[in-house]
């Protein structure tokens, strides 16, 4: 008989009176906390007692630590990847043959928030133009854009007066990425913001794009900005990927000393989550999809990420 305790104790959950039950539960909780603290102290004392011979501190498990290894992770020295990148659609950009020129537009009938967001985005991305949609079909806009030397097309989709989607299409036959956009903050909603972003070309930081897919998305973002950043402007646009969410921030930095830098957030901020990547330009019916987010297959594990 394993479970017979003498004298028989009552579990806290069996007390019928709510007040008393609550009180007993709190007492139990306090006891647990005390025990935990005592354990911690003991462990710390042991550590100190051992001194140099103490075993190294255990690294806590994080989701990033426990991430399921993705076989498409890019190795920086991988030749195949380098070869692919030299021959894909962004090669002309990275070899400085083309200068990025971006067209920003929205879905039909944009509301105030989306319009303001588009304007702010246009100030952040140099050499970009905002045009209103007025019911035009994308399939007809695209050849016109190509004729006028645009390199990228951004369509901000709107729902119930807030922007909620982004389609980024590299124009001369480039890939099209469709993102879900969330937590959009306009400039006036950002606390402690600086003045308006100036006309200088910002630097670009791309963090954590590890897999092949992430790499191509990262290159897409990089292709939005002109090649040579003007360091005088001290502005930096960051695309930071964390667990498949891409956070976009726009800062102004200043080096206070060699080891210290201060950053001040200007410009809009938003987060993106990739929904699909298409090979050609935007074509919802006949496009060839390189990657689609399939919820049932890809969202099964909490430790598996694709970007």
């Amino acid at each position, binding site marked *: 008989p394993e479970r017979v305790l003498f004298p028989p104790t009552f579990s806290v959950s069996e007390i019928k009176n709510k007040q008393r039950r609550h009180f007993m539960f709190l007492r139990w909780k306090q006891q647990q906390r005390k025990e935990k603290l005592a354990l911690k102290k003991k462990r710390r004392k042991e550590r100190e007692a051992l001194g140099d011979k103490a075993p190294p501190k255990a690294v806590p498990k*994080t*989701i*990033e630590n426990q991430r399921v290894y993705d076989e498409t992770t890019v190795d920086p020295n991988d030749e195949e990847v380098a070869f692919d990148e030299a021959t894909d659609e962004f090669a002309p950009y990275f070899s400085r043959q083309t200068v990025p020129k971006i067209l920003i537009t929205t879905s*039909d009938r944009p509301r105030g928030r989306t319009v303001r967001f588009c304007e702010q985005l246009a100030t952040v991305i140099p050499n970009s133009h905002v045009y209103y949609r007025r*019911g035009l*079909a994308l399939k007809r806009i695209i050849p016109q854009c190509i004729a006028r030397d645009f390199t990228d097309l951004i369509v901000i989709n709107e729902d119930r007066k807030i922007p909620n989607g982004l389609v980024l299409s590299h124009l001369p036959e480039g890939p099209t990425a469709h993102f*879900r956009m*969330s*937590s959009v903050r306009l400039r006036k909603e950002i606390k402690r913001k600086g003045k308006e972003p100036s006309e200088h070309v910002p*630097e670009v*930081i791309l*963090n954590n794009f590890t897999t092949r897919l992430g790499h191509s998305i990262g290159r897409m973002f990089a292709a939005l900005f002109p090649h040579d950043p003007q*360091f*005088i402007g*001290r502005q*930096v646009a*960051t695309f*930071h990927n*964390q*667990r*498949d*969410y891409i*956070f976009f*921030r726009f*800062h102004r*930095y*200043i*080096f206070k*000393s*060699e*080891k210290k*830098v201060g*950053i001040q957030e200007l410009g809009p901020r938003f*987060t993106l*989550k990739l929904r699909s990547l298409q090979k050609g330009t935007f074509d919802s019916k006949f496009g060839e999809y390189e990657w689609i987010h399939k*919820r049932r297959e890809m969202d099964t594990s909490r430790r598996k990420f694709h970007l």
Partner: protein
Amino acid sequence: LFVPQVVWSTLGNRQFCSYKMTTKTQNFCRNEYNLTGLCNRSSCPLANSQYATVREEKGRCYLYMKTIERAAFPRRLWERVLLSKNYEKALEEIDENLIYWPRFIRHKCKQRFTKITQYLIRIRKLTLKRQRKLVPLRRKIERRENRREEKALIAAQLDHAIEKELLERLKQDTYGDIYNFPIHAFDKALQQQDAESESESDAEREEDDDDDEDMNKREFVEAEDSELSDFEDMDKLETSSEEEQEEEEEVEKKASHSKSKGKTPLKGPARRKRPYIEIEYEEETEPSTKTKAA
């Protein structure tokens, strides 16, 4: 005994009719064969033994007719006639079929037919344009994604990451000559000299001397604040080794830049007007060099 008058006086007017919908101002009739949609004596399909309607099915319009002869056969009650697609022809067909019928029914049938054709045209036009695709949101999934986004944001520690990246870039000299902090420059100069295999102490002593000279020069310059002093300094610097010269220039540049916060570098004499920070830094590095030299 089926007398329409009786039907109307019971169902339509007084007692309950399941097709009748009352609102504050009007009564509507929900019967699908109703011609006008209102609940009237003349437009109730139950209370009229001779009745006609126009209805459309899958884009084609039909004329439905009901006569007294067939009142006993509910299955065969409504006779259906397909109307032509041509608008005028269809009107003529209505007239043909409803010849000798009461004026009211004929007129209302034609009116209803006109309205139906108009909305069919509109449907066809709209389907050619781009249609908005409505994608239903799944509440559970939305909540899950929002929560995960929040957690990812916390895990990302964006400010730290950006600062780290910027400092990395500074270290790797991507910014070139814009920013130069004396410690950094000093370390670089040190490394270069080590590589050239000169003795450390010699180099330090030289630099130390130069630093001292600079200090003195700077103080001097403050008081006078003229261009001549610049040239003096430049002359004196020419004699010393290249590295030290570079270092001096770098230090000067750094000072001006740290004050101007990254605006375009000011011209020569103006630079000298701001030696304050320079002096501070010089003092900081001096004790370290002195100890090393010693």
